[in-house]
């Protein structure tokens, strides 16, 4: 293929509509007669509902209908959990609470009114008589037998699981030394800038329901919502218009999505619910939420022998789609970028009176990377070794790939040493250490933190996934020569309308602006899995690539027929099928073939006849026209020119890299300032470097948030203290350093594109680098570990009170 676009910094085709305010998110779609929904949500973390009086709300001006949990109990099935762990306790999770509430924000009553103000007004008119019950918010207390949340189970422990390979006890027995550390991964709020939202429209005559939802998984949602509300799946269409960020929080099927569809079916009118930010903090999934103990066994020379991580996972009151599965992803990645012969993870997943945790950017892997990278720094500190050297000592060599880990994975490809060295060179690592030493002599506190991470991407082989791990694509060339790509991936900011068009344009030898990528509409696009787990390009992009190869096989056959030649004498180059003697000439033309029917000159009525007389080459677009006119096709050839491919990956991919953070701590204020931030990431082959940089930047800043600012706080009564963006601190422009990025490029053997994925790398790789840097800055005070978020106050206390 001629690489005119792939690998290049191509500006996004999505942007012109977005920068002019002309794009459509869910709330931007206005249907005539739309009713608005608002929810009464629990003010208590754990309470019995004695009674609900909705009469005043029903009588309020503009209110059309009011629904309680009992009204919908036998009408709408439970909110689904796709995780199938052995002996997992799955609570009956109804779309509205009935007799008990389990967390602050738990939906109790849905109010439907003529406009959003009237709906919101009526919320205050609903009288709920609560009888409060003892609350448990601390995960260890929940495990130890605090108040039982779901009486039917008699325990708050939802599951216990031990994973890993190798003899960990023997490794610890044989070790020269061991280190141990308790660590906290606080709950985080994903905070997509667009809150969730649903618009539902039911046509009673056609018996068709359309849901516009801000989701990452339109097809999976269609299946699940169809089952929940009992509509045939082929009568339900899910459309994801523009989606304003997800970060895993929209990789879910929520109560509101099913409920809105059902309400529209009851009322025969469009109904809309747009989440408020407060609701988003209360009732959209949170991420992380682990309390664990790391133990590392190693030799005096720094060779790692074993790692154990025993963790309490704070699941919240109910399982959302993947809640129990997230900690198991942590278990998969506990080998990090290292040779560790024996690894064990012990998970105790517990119910608490809080919103469910689930996938938030990284989804279990940031926890693993944090455990391993903090663990490595503890080993380095214990041995007095440089953290880079401990890492280097335990890397598998590039020749050892595929590399089998004691967590049961086979890493596809990697060259960890090269990435580390490149980052060290960029940062001037040796000089930095010297500068740090001198600064310490002057009383300044400079810290250097490393993270040599590896992550698991391109989720994933279907065997390892709850609902299929493949991705789909249809590529067709329309009669006018325009290329349409339908992808089952569901991009929401990642830019795949551009990057998939880059792949298609290069493979077909057409102009980028002749390619349109369509996604996020189950009425148009073949079944797909969606966008999460850094999978869209590696799995979905590969589906596009292979679909094009299929399409080209057919085009080749038609071209051979039209050129009255043998297949072996016709070759494809630069967008043209040419007879071999002419192939060299065709290849020499670098320009793109134009569509057969230029815009604005479309013929009325019949399509033009393909002109092949005397030609020695044909553009793929001329072939598309011939395939549709279909007057002279080879025998047994279907008319039309399209191909569909469902790509099933044989393995995950394993991107990696090195992040180096350099910070200085202010002795007087405890403020932490970034002096440098260097990142070398390897996400395999790069389709669009500009998009890759954007993903890395965004990921690192979410790491800065986790390391230094963000924390979902519930008090002991289960009240959400961080219920607004005033209380939950997100990084702002002035909080971020200027990033220095570079790459190494180790292609993945798992897919023909060689891509690995990059959506979560920054969030996985950066957090430990930042924390390691702050801990390193405070090493003169004997600090070996600090829990996130590390705030100036914590730092100040250490400096001033030891």
């Amino acid at each position, binding site marked *: 293929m001629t690489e005119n676009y792939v690998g290049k910094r191509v500006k996004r085709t999505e942007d012109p509509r977005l920068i002019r305010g002309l794009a459509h*998110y869910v709330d931007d779609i206005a249907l005539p007669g739309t009713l608005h929904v608002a929810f009464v949500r629990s003010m208590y973390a754990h309470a019995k509902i004695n009674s609900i009086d909705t009469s005043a709300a029903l009588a309020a001006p503009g209110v059309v209908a009011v629904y309680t949990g009992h009204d919908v109990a036998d009408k709408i099935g439970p909110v689904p959990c796709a995780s199938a762990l052995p002996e997992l306790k799955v609570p009956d999770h109804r779309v509205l609470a009935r007799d008990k509430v389990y967390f602050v924000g738990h939906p109790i009553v849905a109010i439907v009114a003529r406009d959003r103000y009237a709906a919101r007004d009526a919320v205050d008119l609903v009288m709920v008589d609560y009888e409060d019950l003892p609350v448990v918010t601390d995960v260890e207390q929940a495990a130890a037998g605090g108040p039982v949340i779901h009486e039917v189970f008699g325990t708050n422990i939802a599951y216990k699981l031990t994973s890993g390979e190798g003899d960990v006890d023997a490794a610890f027995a044989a070790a020269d030394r061991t280190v141990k550390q308790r660590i906290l991964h606080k709950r985080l709020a994903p905070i997509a800038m667009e809150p969730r939202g649903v618009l539902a429209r039911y046509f009673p005559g056609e018996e068709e329901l359309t849901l516009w939802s801000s989701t990452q998984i339109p097809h999976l949602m269609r299946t699940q919502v169809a089952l929940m509300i009992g509509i045939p799946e082929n009568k339900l269409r899910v459309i994801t218009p523009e989606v304003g960020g997800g970060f895993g929080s929209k990789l879910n099927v929520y109560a509101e999505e099913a409920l809105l569809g059902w309400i529209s079916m009851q009322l025969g009118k469009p109904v809309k619910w747009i989440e408020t930010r407060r609701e988003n903090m209360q009732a959209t999934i949170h991420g992380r939420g682990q309390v664990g103990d790391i133990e590392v066994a190693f030799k005096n020379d720094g060779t790692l022998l074993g790692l154990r991580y025993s963790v309490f996972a704070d699941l919240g009151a109910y399982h959302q789609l993947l809640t129990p599965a997230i900690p198991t992803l942590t278990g998969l990645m506990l080998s990090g970028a290292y040779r560790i012969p024996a690894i064990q993870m012990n998970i105790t997943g517990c119910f608490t009176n809080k919103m469910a945790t689930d996938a938030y950017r990284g989804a279990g892997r940031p926890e693993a990377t944090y455990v391993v990278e903090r663990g490595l720094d503890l080993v380095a500190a214990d041995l007095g070794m440089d953290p880079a050297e401990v890492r280097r000592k335990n890397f598998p060599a590039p020749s050892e790939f595929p590399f089998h880990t004691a967590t049961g994975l086979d890493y596809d490809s990697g060259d960890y040493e090269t990435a580390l060295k490149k980052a060290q060179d960029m940062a001037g690592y040796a000089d930095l250490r010297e500068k740090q030493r001198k600064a310490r002599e002057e009383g300044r506190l400079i810290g250097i933190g490393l993270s040599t991470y590896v992550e698991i991407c391109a989720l994933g082989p279907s065997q390892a996934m709850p609902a299929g791990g493949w991705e789909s694509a249809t590529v067709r060339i329309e009669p006018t020569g325009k290329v349409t790509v339908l992808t089952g991936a569901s991009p929401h900011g990642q830019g795949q309308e551009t990057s998939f068009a880059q792949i298609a344009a290069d493979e077909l030898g057409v102009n980028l602006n002749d390619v349109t990528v369509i996604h996020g509409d189950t009425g148009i696009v073949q079944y797909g899995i969606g966008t999460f787990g850094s999978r869209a390009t590696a799995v979905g992009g590969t589906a596009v690539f292979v679909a094009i190869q299929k399409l080209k096989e057919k085009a080749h056959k038609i071209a051979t027929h039209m050129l009255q030649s043998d297949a072996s004498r016709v070759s494809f180059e630069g967008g043209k099928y040419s007879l071999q003697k002419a192939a060299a000439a065709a290849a020499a033309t670098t320009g793109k073939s134009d569509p057969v029917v230029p815009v604005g000159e479309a013929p009325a009525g019949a399509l033009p006849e393909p002109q092949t007389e005397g030609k020695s080459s044909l553009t793929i677009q001329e072939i598309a026209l011939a395939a549709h006119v279909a007057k002279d096709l080879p025998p047994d050839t279907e008319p039309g020119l399209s191909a569909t491919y469902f790509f099933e990956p044989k393995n995950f991919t394993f991107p990696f890299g090195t992040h180096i953070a350099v910070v200085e701590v202010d002795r007087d204020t405890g403020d932490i300032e970034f002096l440098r931030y260097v990142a070398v990431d390897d996400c395999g082959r790069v389709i669009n470097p500009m998009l890759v940089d954007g993903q890395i930047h965004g990921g690192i800043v979410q790491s800065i948030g986790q390391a230094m600012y963000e924390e979902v706080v519930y008090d002991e009564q289960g009240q959400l203290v961080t219920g607004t963006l005033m209380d939950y601190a997100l*990084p*702002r422009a002035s909080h971020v350093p200027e990033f220095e990025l570079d790459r190494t490029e180790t292609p993945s053997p798992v897919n023909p594109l060689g891509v690995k994925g990059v959506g979560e790398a920054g969030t996985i790789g950066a957090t430990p680098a930042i924390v390691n840097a702050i801990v390193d800055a405070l090493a003169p005070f004997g600090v070996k570990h600090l829990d996130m978020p590390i705030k100036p106050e914590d730092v100040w206390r250490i400096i001033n009170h030891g």
Partner: protein
Amino acid sequence: MKKAINLSVNGVSHAGEVEPRMLLVHYLRDVLELTGTHVGCETSLCGACTVMLDGQAVKSCTVFAVQADGSSVTTIEGLAKNGERHPVQEGFWEKHGLQCGYCTPGMIMTAAQLLERNADPSREEICHGLEGNLCRCTGYQHIIEAVQYAAKKAGQS
């Protein structure tokens, strides 16, 4: 009790009656169907709803429509002049200053005001100027570069 208001939005006069409690952002979005201005937090913390009100960047989720009576409002839809994208819009496209695009209209309006006040801002001044606007996707670096690009471009023209 509805109240009559009369205001100019993107150079077009609009007269009508609104509930006194109707937020400006809802008036723009639901009444005028200018949905480019987004609501991200309803508490003036995220900046997604930023518009120009008489030349000042304000968060339209915490302004009542009646407060805008007699005023002139510019929204993202009105920023381009004669079909020419504003330099800040160019900058955001050129420098990949957006991903999901939800914060973008507010971010662009704030950046436009920033450059009106300071044609050649330093990186620090840009960061300070954008503090009222949250972005969860980009990590800000490309946004900062977009504003630098716009400053340079505006300076050349």
